[in-house]
């Protein structure tokens, strides 16, 4: 469950008690105060996964890049192979 989206940490406010550590996380320009207690290793400009106002995990950007590269390869492979093997039920998105 659960609706959690990745955002960039643009400021961190340290606290004497980690439990109260907060930061501002930006989601494409939407800035929200987010609790950072559960991501103690977080640095400025890191990406974190935010769920109900709390950062629940840091995004592993290396893993994300690996996944995106692998998916890009798939995409390129698809183009090399030509038209789709199975067209049934697949609509062409109209991008005009």
């Amino acid at each position: 469950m659960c609706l959690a989206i990745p955002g960039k940490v643009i400021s961190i406010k340290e606290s004497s008690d980690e439990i109260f550590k907060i930061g501002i996380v930006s989601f494409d320009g939407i800035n929200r105060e987010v609790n950072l207690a559960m991501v103690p290793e977080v640095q400025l400009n890191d990406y974190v996964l935010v769920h109900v106002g709390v950062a629940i995990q840091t995004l592993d950007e290396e893993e994300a890049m690996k996944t995106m590269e692998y998916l890009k390869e798939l995409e390129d492979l698809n183009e090399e192979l030509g038209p789709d093997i199975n067209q049934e039920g697949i609509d062409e998105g109209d991008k005009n």
Partner: protein
Amino acid sequence: MSDRKFTLQCPMPELDFEVVTLGHGSGGKLTNDLLDKGVFSLFQNDALQQRHDGAFLDIQGKIAFTTDSFVINPIFFPGGNIGELSVNGTVNDLAMCGADPKYISLSLIIEEGMRIDDLWEVLAGVKVSAEAAGVQVVTGDTKVVEKGKGDQVFINTTGVGITHPAVDFSMDRISPEDVVIVSGPIAAHGMAIMSVREGLTFESDIISDTRPLHEITSSLIDKYGKDIKLLRDPTRGGVATVLNEVAKFSRVGIELNEYRFPVDTQVKAACEMLGLDPLYVANEGIFLAVVKKDIAQQALSTIQSHRYGRQATIIGEVQEENPGKVFIKSKIGGRRVVGMLAGEQLPRIC
């Protein structure tokens, strides 16, 4: 309250009271004080200055007549206030009737204890928006209710306008192959309100899109007349709600394309964060037009030539299949129904 942009344009006079009291609504001297210094000093026109119980209007043509009440909370939000909303809302209702808005009434129900400088900002908002829209506030009413029985101020505006002779809007006229156009980016107003709602607040540059649309609608009817089948502004319930109504009452299907919907980046991000679908979020400064296919591209250009229509796009078309239903093709190539919501869309965690 953040900025007082309207007060800056219409400076508040010296007043010897700081808050509105029950006495100000009782009809006596205090009421006159409030009206004289508040309302009449702001709205200078012949009809209102007569101070009759009603206004005499000389109007030729088919009259369009509409009313709307505004009970929003908070009354100040990024991009505007309830005053501005109440003018543009009624102006736009008249625009959707294909009419040129002329006169509005202004009825205020003020909560005891409302600060007079807040009230002034709201009234100044009414004045500035009325001037921008070219309408006059010709009559009105003021009441004060006990503290706790209102949200600072409720406003009702009723408007009259002159219907363009070429207008022929009707759900019955909508037919397969008609094209659906949206005049601008969606979901801005609703998300601007969300950004200041207790419990959901976030910082952003999102502002309400409240603005008058009648100049654009007038051009459309001037140029294309009957080929404009319907105009609707998707306020509460958003684009999805209006299109469902159209599909139902016209007994047609509507096919939309997710690719084509203009949505501002920050509005989209805010929707992602709260788990809201922009199709159901309120708008105050855009309209939907259902137009004949032959003139769709030109109609689009006409809208885009206006400053409030620059981001207009064709978002879909009417079809014979699946009458009463609205479908959308998702960006990844799938297809789903866009249904009616049972109630207000609420932020979700899942």
